């Protein structure tokens, strides 16, 4: 019974994915998409990958990481250096760059994963922030990354012309993280979030799962970085600062912590909306700040519970059932 339901869900998800893909592709090749929206296709995918992967650590594991942009920059630089130095056809070069970028970021994930074993909450957040800053200043002072000048002339292996690949990567990320969350390990991760000491007492190996979640999140952030560098073609260390990490956090918070579907929708909204409201950009940061505060207070206050359990909603539900 249970299995059949999950199968049904899977089929539905795949169907939705394919439909979205066909719509976007036909818009793209039918020339119906304006250039502005065409240039947003890849950033939307990048933000979806970043948000979904951050959701794994912040939403499911319940540990705030403020260095997600740091992982992204490691992936972006590694991937860019691979393509700049390989000069092979894209079919070989780009997968290698993706893999290298992801692995490099994952290695940094392990390095951060170790302090994670000893730290929680506030301290961990600050350590991840510190790691992000350290990565930035190291990239800034290295010869191979060309320091402050950054890298340019990276081949555009991931621009809108290659939307199909990027879309596939995005879908793979979502499914991989979704599966991870629903797996045995994933339920363990949630248990850690809800009660650390209890989880440990029942025999869940807290450390292993925590590190694993960090490594997986870092890996996908690295992948997003590789796509970024091959979409824009230039890289500068200052792009991946604290503000970038916060931007991803805002997406996760708006979409709802622990909800993958929420992250995807919020990533689309928060990428497209600022473009539509270009002239009001000064207010973007203000809006982000308000989103963070209001969502948090709303989530933990009684208002939400009251709305969810209110008369109106239950009446609505009843009406729907009858219909």
């Amino acid at each position: 019974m249970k299995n059949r339901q999950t199968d049904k869900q899977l089929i539905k998800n795949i169907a939705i994915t394919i439909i979205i893909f066909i719509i976007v592709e036909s818009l793209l090749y039918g020339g119906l998409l304006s250039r502005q929206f065409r240039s947003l296709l890849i950033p939307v995918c990048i933000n979806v990958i970043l948000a979904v992967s951050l959701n794994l650590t912040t939403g499911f594991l319940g540990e705030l990481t403020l260095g997600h942009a740091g992982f992204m920059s490691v992936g972006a630089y590694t991937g860019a250096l691979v393509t700049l130095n390989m000069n092979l056809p894209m079919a070989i070069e780009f997968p290698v760059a993706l893999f290298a970028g992801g692995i490099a970021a994952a290695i940094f994930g392990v390095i951060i994963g170790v302090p994670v074993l000893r730290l929680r909450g506030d301290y961990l957040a600050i350590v991840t922030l510190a790691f992000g800053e350290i990565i930035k200043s190291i990239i800034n002072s290295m010869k191979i990354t060309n320091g402050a000048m950054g890298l340019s002339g990276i081949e555009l292996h991931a621009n809108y012309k290659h939307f199909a690949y990027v879309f596939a990567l995005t879908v793979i990320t979502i499914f991989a993280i979704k599966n991870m969350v629903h797996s045995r390990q994933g339920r363990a991760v949630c248990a850690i979030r809800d009660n650390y000491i209890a989880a440990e007492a029942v025999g869940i190996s807290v450390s292993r799962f925590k590190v694993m979640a960090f490594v997986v999140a870092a890996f996908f952030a690295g992948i997003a970085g590789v796509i970024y560098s091959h979409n824009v073609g230039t890289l500068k260390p200052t792009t991946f600062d604290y503000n970038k990490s916060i931007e991803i956090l805002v997406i996760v918070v708006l979409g709802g912590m622990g909800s993958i579907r929420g992250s995807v929708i919020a990533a689309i909204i928060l990428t497209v909306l600022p473009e539509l409201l270009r002239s009001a950009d000064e207010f973007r940061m203000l809006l982000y700040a308000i989103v963070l505060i209001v969502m948090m207070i709303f989530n933990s206050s009684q208002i939400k519970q009251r709305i969810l359990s209110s008369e109106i909603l239950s009446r609505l539900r009843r009406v729907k059932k009858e219909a």
Partner: protein
Amino acid sequence: MGILQNILEQVINGLRSGSIYALIALGYTMVYGIAKMINFAHGDIIMVGAYALYVGLAIFHLPAVGAVLLSIAICTILGVGIERIAYKPLRSAQPLAVLITAIGVSFLLQSLSLLIFGATPIPQASIVGFDGIKIGGISISGITIVTLIVTTICMASLTWFINKTKLGSAMRAVSEDKGAAELMGIDVNKTISLTFAIGSALAAIAGILYVCQYQSLKPTLGAMPGIKAFVAAVLGGIGSVPGAMLGGIILGLIESLSKAYISTELSDAIVFGILVLVLLIKPSGLLGKIRKEKV
């Protein structure tokens, strides 16, 4: 110019920035001790203090003392207000929610000042009147002397306040055990407000000293000093008042000497590296107490 003289001058540089870090770190450490949260917006209160001084001097044409008092008053009210509006509803919520709210408040203050004052740095002359002194070829600027004196006075009076007054004892009691303190008749809400008020007033003073030193204002000016002061608070042992002072001074010295003799490019990396090392080796810091988590 001897090398020794150069080292001495770098040490003075370190002491000056270190004493400002210490002032800011006190705010972090007191709030953490009592409310068990990192007030991410603390660095931005420095920024508000700096802009308030500017508004007082350049727009209302107040005398220097008036502008300083205005700045301290605005920050104190702001600090208490933030606690009441943003943090109090979350007192029983998950730490993650509180932390994200604090980040939101920090962003809110920054973007508001960006909207009001713009991104272009605003010049503001120092209110410190007298020139520096020279001791045997080493010159010490006026602002350095003022900074050292002001921070020493602040730290001494805070230590006296916490250890010798009734309100100070209440603060210590709340930080030790909130529940027990409440049972003993201490008004916990009032004590938390008081902590935020003192921390924010110290941040305002740090902001004023900052303006006098660097003589220019921008909306993000509080971010870096804020984060570094947090590192100082952790280094000294978060929750410990003497620890914050010690941590601030040590961090200032490390930063100045590593910039001078190791690498300016990597000095930030070194500062954050210290944070990571301290947390891994001795998470309770130099003077902090070890806390056990209970079920």
